[in-house]
Structures are given as C-alpha cells and as structure tokens.
C-alpha cells in the first residue's frame, strides 16, 4: 500500500519534529512516512497520532528547509522495517539502521519491524550461564549471566566507557563453548569521540569484526534516539536468534534516550509525570530492556549492558530508578571511590545482580562462591557502618574488632575492587578470601566451619 501525495493543501502545520496533516488517506498508527520537498532527499518519519481528520507525523530527521507548501508526503503503508541479512558484523550504521561507513547496504534476507519483538514469557529459557568479565566486583559479587540485562549506573566523568569496553573485549563463558560474543554497540546521543574510542579499542583488540555499531551522534536529531536502540536490538536479535550467536549489546547513554523521550512527549503535549518524564517511561523502557534473554529451542542469546549517567549523581532520579525496576540488577559507580583512585569505582553494596543465584555455585562456578559473596557483602556492610561510627568517635573510640573492620574495608577496596587488567575467577576469589582473613573467624557467620578451615589463613591480627 503506497500513497504518494503531493500535498500543497495537506500539511497544516510543522512544529518541531511534528508535521500535522489533514487526513485523506487511511493510514495506520506507527506507519512509516517519507517527507520530502522540492530538491531535497526523503526524510523518514512515522505516524504518531490519528485523530479524527488529523494525522500527526513525527519526523526522525531534521525539519529545516521544510515548508508547508512544498512538502511531499509518501505513506509507506506499513511500519518501519529493518533489512537484515548476513554481514551485519564489522559494520557501522546510523541511528536509523542505514550504513554510515560508506559500505553497501546489508543484503536483506528478511525485513523486520523494529518494535514488535515481545518474547512470550512461556517460551523464555532461564539465563544461567556465568559470564566471566574479568572484573572482581562483578564476577564474585554481582555476577553477569548470559541473557541478563545488567545496566551500569554511572555519572558524568566516571570511567563507565572504559569498563564497558573492557567487558566487551574480554567477556567469555566460564564453561568454554568455543564461541566469542558478538558485540552490538548502540550509541545514543553520544559524542563522536566516545564512539570513535570504542571503535578504536575494539579494532585494537581485534574484535572489530565481531562488532556492529549503531550510532546516533549528539548532533543528530533527538527523535531518532527513540529508534536507535530498537534498530540495534533488532539487529542483535537477528544475530542471536537467526544466526545463533551470543550477543552482548552495549547501550549508551540511556540517559540521552530518556531525555529524548521527555522532549518528544512534551512536543506531543502529553501530561508529564515525575520530573517531566512521561508516565509511560516505565513501559517504554521495558520494551527495550525486556529484549534481553533467550528463547527455548533457539540457539543464541541477547545480553544487555546498558549504561546510564545518573543526573546529579542521584540514584533516586527517575531514570536510574525506573531502570532499576526493570533490569535484573545494576552495577553502580561511585564518585568517591573514583576520587580515591580506585578503578573500577564500583560500589558493591548498591550494586546487585538478580540472576547471580542462578549462575553461581555448585555446577556453575565454585561451590563456595555464594558463601564468599555473602560474607564479603555482610562484612563490607559492617565496615561501612564502622566508618560512620569512627568519623564521630574516632578510631580510638572503636572496639578492637571494629578497628579490624576499618582495615578490612580499606583493603577490600584497595585490593579486591581495585584492579588493573582482567582477573580469572580463581584469582578474584582468592583475593576475597585473603581480605576476609583480616577478620577474626567468629565474625564470619556466613561461612561454615569447613569453609573457614579451608580458605581463611589467619593473618597475624594486629588489632
């Protein structure tokens, strides 16, 4: 169904990215539209509202140069489709899935809608394959499993790009099945520099041919940002479920996505909810994040590592808050750790991996892994309380045991969290046991007597 309309009398108004038309053909909500004007290229848009005699089209590209009089509207009669086929990897696409590396378009084997993939919950497989990231604070305490969505909650100026790049380069299964991860990098409103440095890093480690990049740059239209992750995920699903690969999707920066959502919602005149973000932001973000997982009977998996920057470092801001309610945990970066020179500056207590219990322990990693993690969490939580106490009463006012907790907290951060390079799981766990050895065994109530006897080598407690 194609309607090509030259529409002198059709367009009634152009406001920001919205083009208002008088309805004279029967279009469907969500249908793709091409808007062009004399001598200009077609610009892509989609129908966002049908109301009586009016149709509202949202343009996903720049509106400059468009006039009411000379706009030509082409209704494509169907929602936006993405051509998919072999050869996605190694390529760079723009925010609407078109090549931006000068190469030819992907030879389409299928065309798919970018927003329709809802996995039937009854068909989902249970994610439980442990992914080794090489980062102790993640591997031991907040483990990532295949098919999970685990965002990084960061903030301006913190090294989230470095962490994500490192994970993309070194992630592998603990139980080797010989297959590398394919990486889909989705840049949403990112600067040219950060896109380029990711590309360079992947090239440097030889992983570029396993990588597809989708880029909507900071200078490109806002409305496009709402579609970029959907194009990237449609590609990821093709790589996973059609080509049978294990795909790691990095989405950065989801804060830009949410800002775009707020802006577009405001331009539609919708009633805002918390801090001006639309009330449907939860459902909208869910349609992105829920696209992680795997389907029984199909070969590949989609694992998501979204990155967001918390406005004003505030974890209760609607963007991280709503994200945390949808994703399966979060890795939280902390400015104070960063100031103290600790890399990666991961605050393990507010971090969480909800699928960890399914992917660690007997038969997955190490039988003592769960207890080690629980003990580290419990002891570090206590250390944090003691720190507050000591800031009031001073180190001298503490009991001898509490002083040990202070030392434990410092060494946990300096030796366990802090790292250069990547670590094997055994190495990470070894450091965990080592720092726990600072504490007297009576304090280790999460460990069994046997675990204490095997792993805890009492260091000469200096008290």
């Amino acid at each position: 169904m194609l309607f090509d309309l030259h529409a002198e009398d059709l367009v009634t108004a152009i406001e920001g990215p919205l083009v208002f038309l008088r309805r004279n053909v029967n279009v469907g909500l969500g249908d793709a539209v091409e808007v062009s004007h004399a001598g200009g290229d077609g610009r892509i848009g989609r129908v966002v509202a049908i109301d009586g005699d009016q149709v509202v089209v949202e343009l996903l590209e720049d509106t400059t140069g468009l006039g009411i009089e000379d706009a030509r509207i082409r209704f494509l009669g169907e929602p936006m489709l993405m051509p998919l086929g072999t050869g996605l990897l190694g390529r760079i696409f723009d925010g609407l899935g078109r090549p931006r590396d000068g190469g030819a378009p992907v030879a389409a084997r299928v065309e798919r809608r970018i927003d329709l993939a809802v996995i039937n919950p009854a068909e989902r497989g249970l994610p439980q394959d442990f992914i080794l990231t090489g980062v102790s604070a993640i591997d031991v305490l907040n483990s990532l499993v295949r098919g999970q969505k685990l965002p990084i909650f960061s903030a301006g100026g913190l090294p989230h790009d470095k962490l994500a790049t490192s994970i993309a380069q070194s992630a592998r299964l603990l139980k080797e099945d010989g297959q590398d991860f394919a990486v889909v990098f989705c840049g949403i409103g990112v600067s040219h520099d950060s896109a380029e440095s990711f590309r360079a890093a992947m090239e440097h480690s030889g992983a570029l041919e396993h990588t597809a990049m989708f880029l909507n740059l900071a200078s490109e239209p806002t409305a496009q940002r709402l579609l970029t992750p959907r194009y990237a995920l449609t590609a990821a699903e093709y790589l996973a479920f059609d080509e049978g690969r294990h795909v790691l999707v990095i989405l950065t920066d989801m804060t830009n996505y949410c800002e775009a959502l707020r802006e577009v919602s405001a331009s539609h005149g919708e009633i805002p909810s918390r801090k001006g973000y639309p009330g449907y932001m939860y459902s909208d973000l869910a349609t992105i994040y829920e696209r992680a997982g795997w389907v029984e009977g199909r070969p590949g998996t989609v694992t998501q590592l979204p990155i967001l920057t918390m406005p004003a470092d505030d974890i209760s801001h609607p963007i991280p808050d709503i994200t945390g309610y949808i994703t399966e945990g979060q890795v939280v970066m902390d400015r104070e750790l960063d100031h103290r020179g600790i890399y990666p500056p991961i605050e393990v207590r507010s971090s969480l991996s909800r699928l960890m219990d399914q992917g660690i322990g007997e038969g997955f990693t190490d039988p003592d892994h769960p207890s080690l993690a629980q003990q580290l969490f419990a002891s570090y939580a206590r250390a944090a309380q003691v720190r507050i106490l000591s800031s009031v009463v001073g180190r001298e006012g503490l009991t001898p045991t509490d002083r040990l907790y202070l030392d434990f907290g410092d060494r946990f951060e300096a030796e366990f969290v802090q790292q250069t390079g990547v670590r094997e799981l055994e190495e990470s766990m070894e450091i965990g046991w080592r720092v726990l050895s600072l504490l007297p065994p009576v304090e280790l109530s999460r460990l069994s007597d046997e675990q204490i006897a095997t792993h805890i080598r009492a260091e000469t407690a200096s008290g």
Partner: protein
Amino acid sequence: MIGDMTAAAVIESVSGPVVKALRHAPLSVGEAVSVGPAGLLGEVVRVSAGQCTIQVYEETTGLRFGDAVIGSGQPLSVRLGPGLLGNIFDGLLRPLQQGGEEVQYTVLPLLEAGEKVQAGQRLARLEGPAKEQFVLVPHDLPEGVLGWIASGSAGENDVVARIALEDGSEREIGMIEHWPVRQPRPVRRRLAPNKMMVTGQRILDSLFPVARGGRAAIPGGFGTGKTVLQETLAKWCDADVIVYVGCGERGNEMAEVLHEFPKLEDPRSGRPLMERTVVIANTSNMPVAAREASIYTGVTVGEYFRDQGYNVTLMADSTSRWAEALREVSGRLGELPSESGYPAYLSSRLSEFYERAARVETLAGKKASLTLIGAVSPPAGDFSEPVTSHTKRYVRCFWGLDRGRAQARFYPAIHPLQSYSEDAANLVEWWTKQGNPNWRAWRERLLVLLEEQANLERMARIVGKDALPAEQQVKLLCADLVGNAFLRQSAFSKVDRYCSPERQTAMLGALIQFFDAAEQAVSEGVSPDDIAGSEFYRRMARMNEEIGEGEADRFAELIAHMEREMATLKRSDVDAV
C-alpha cells in the same frame, strides 16, 4: 465471544491503548468489544451520544481510521475451568502456552438425578492432571432439580449435568464458566480471619503473621526482595492454590516460576508445586491496558478456586504497575489527574481490590479463603507516595522492605520496626494450638529487644560501643543474634528456605533461653565479649543453617551446650576478677 458481527462503531482516533469511535448502535459501559480487522479485544469505558471510548487490551499499532468495532453484549469476562492449574495465561486469561491434546477428566457425581440443587453447590468432583476440582451450580441459577448428571470420562467442553428449572426449562451445565472480572463472586458469609496462613518465613509467621483471608502489602524499592519474597511464599506457604500474577514485571521472572515450580515438591502433598499454581503474566513489555485487567483476572481466578472450597493465596507483583496502567489510561482519556498524576479513583480501586480478600463460607457451605499479597514499588523507595500510602489504609499486614538491609544482603530485608500485622492479635490461639502458648509473650520480647537495639545503636554512635554498660552491650549481642539466627532466612538455602511453625517455636525458645542466660551471666560479671567470642554463640548464630526441619532434639542439645559453656565462662571470668 463476539456474537453480532455488524459494526456498532467505527474508529475515529487512536492514542496508545485508547480508541475513540463513532457509534451508531448501542454499546454499554464495560462491554467487551472486538476492534479492527484483527479482532483486538477491548472494553468500552465511556459512551456518549454518537461516540464511545474503548480501552484496547492488545497492541494498537496498525489500527486505522474507520476500522470496525463490534459489540459482544457481554461484560469483559474470563473463562474459568479445570484447565487453569499448572498453566500460564495472559492478563485476560488466554493461554500463553499451546497445550497438547484435550485433557480428559474423570467425573465423579456428588448428587443424584432428582435431587434439589441451588447456586454454588458442588455437583461433581473432577479428577484430572492437577488437584481435584469441582463442578458447581452456576451462581445465576435459581433453585432447580438435577435432571441428569454425567459419570466417567469427559472433556472440558462436554456437558456434565442438566438442571430442570422451575419454569419448566432446562439448563446444561459444563465444566467451563464465564465470569465478569470486575464483579466479585458471591459467598454465603464472611468468617473471622483467625486461622494463620503459614508462610514458612520466620519474620512473618513469628512476628508479622497474616491470617487466611488476610491482605498484606510488600512495599520496597527496586531490588529489595519483593519478588523473591512473593515467589518464596508461593512455594512454601500452606495454601491449596496459588494464583501468581506477574503484573508489569520481568519476563525472566515468569520463566523462573515456570522452570522451577514443576521441579519443586509441595512439602504437604508431595506433588509438584506447579500443580497447585496458576500463573497470570502481563510482563512489562506486554500491552499496558491488559495490565490493568490482569489484577482483576487474578482475583476472579482466586475467587473461583475459593468457591471450590480451597484456601487460595494470590500474589500480585506489582500493584504499582497496575496503578500506573490505570494512570496511563486515565491520562489518555483526558481525566483530571490527582496526586502524582494518578486518577482520583486510585484509592477506591485499591480498596475494591483488597476487599475481595476474605475467609468465607462458600455458597456450598465450605470454609475457604482468598488471601491477597500485593507488592508495591514506590518510586525512589519513598513510602509516602500515593500507591503505598493508599494501600496502607486497606491492608492489615505491612511488610516494609528496607534498602539498607538489602544492601547488606540481609534477607528477607523486611524492616521489623517499620512493619506490622493487625492479624497477630487474632492468631494467639492458633499458635497455642500449635504448641506454643508463649508466642505472644515471646513475640513481644523480640519486638521490644529490636526497638532497644535501634536506640542503643544510636547511642553507640555518639559515645562508642565500648562506653556502653555491660547490660546494654549484652542487649546488643542478643539483638544481633536475633538478626543473624532468626530474622535472616535465605530463600536460596535448601535447609532454611522453609521453616515450619515447630522449628520456629524451637528456635524462638532457644533464643529466649539464651537471652535469660546471657543477661544473668553478665550480671554476674561475665564479659559480653567473651560470650560473643564463644563457640556456642557461633553455633547459635548459625542454627538457621545448621539445624534443619525435623531435628528438634538438636535444639535441646544446643541449649544444653550453651548452658554448659555459659557456666564455664562464669567460672573463668568471675574467678579472674
């Protein structure tokens, strides 16, 4: 369901799940309709002269101006029947799993032809793959006489009985019943909520118990443990039937239930847990309007099993997503927003929902119950927001999850000082019958101790812990022990994920003896640090992991061990002075 095939209205505008249509035939508010060529299911929410507004329960992308809307003449209803148990459905009770061949049930008649019957009465027992179920006389049937009743094998769609009515007509009764989701099912009368629902979670049963037919809310910020707690209750609580409603939450969590439950055994019946479970899933990426309906669908299913004579527990995770769906639809209808954009009727909807929880005598004269447990997901974990604060007015148990506890991985992260149970007062007798006449006193002692702990810790933060007198230090020690050994209970520990009332009583008893012994010892000069460093203290702190179900004698050993070592401590410490 859709009878008359002529269009009652045509689409005029579409905004998300809300469709406005020009109406040229009668449609009533609440009527189920079919929308567009794909026959999307919708419900009429408003009618005016020549117009109507419809809430559509499916993805509306692709709907066009002028598409037809067809009325059904029926309110939005769900199809109830014996095939529900063990299966997963969407928000409107349509199966999400394609079943194999048609299930055959064995029909065992409970009445004979010629007997008088009335609404709600049990006609026949059905034996099938899941637990036994019953064919009931429909609620809308006045008195009649049983004309014929089947016996032996029958399928879901077969006629099972015929009832002759007074006016001379006859009504065919099958296994399937359609019921409008927004309408509560009738009961003979409500009963007092004085039977406990055993959850197997110590902090709940011993401190904040919920009665059968009760209503409880679990508010908590993201990642504080609402879902794990609800799943744990769904696994181990002593209900006959579990209705698990995943309302706007994660697909992987539904997958978890579907994968885990069939492998777990109901400790009471020895059957797979899945056989007593119905899962209703509207995950966060499924249509929003169906999310609003899924809660009503769930309660209706719960009432259906209650009417069969069962004790039913419904978990709704999360009621906040339902409230948000209400808000979104309300916004699209152009209604005036109230607090935080929620419609003004949020509060009355919540109260209608929780009001459907009850322990009752069914129309068939059986004692049965429906217990409602709703998770609440307050933005930024702030309990003063509208959904949490209104919910608080309508529930009797409030199990508040605390971020600090969750961050320390202290699970379940229920904060004992922010939680309460109004049912507790009615359950003293129940505990006495379980063999714990001291429950009320012990519970109070624990709660007072936890209160004191909070005060003492505040004080220690100013003066340092060492500066506290020994009798206060020992209080802190006792409270720590309560936390580690009793309140903490990992959902993932094979030994400790379920704790029977007997084991809870034994543990409480051991703790109380410890309090007495430790306070006594300290008053005689033993240092609290020595108690904390002793072997028996470590054993007590780990008793939840080290002493499992059915090992009651080991608690006695533990207490004996404690008394021996405490005596030794007294000798050495006091002698040293």
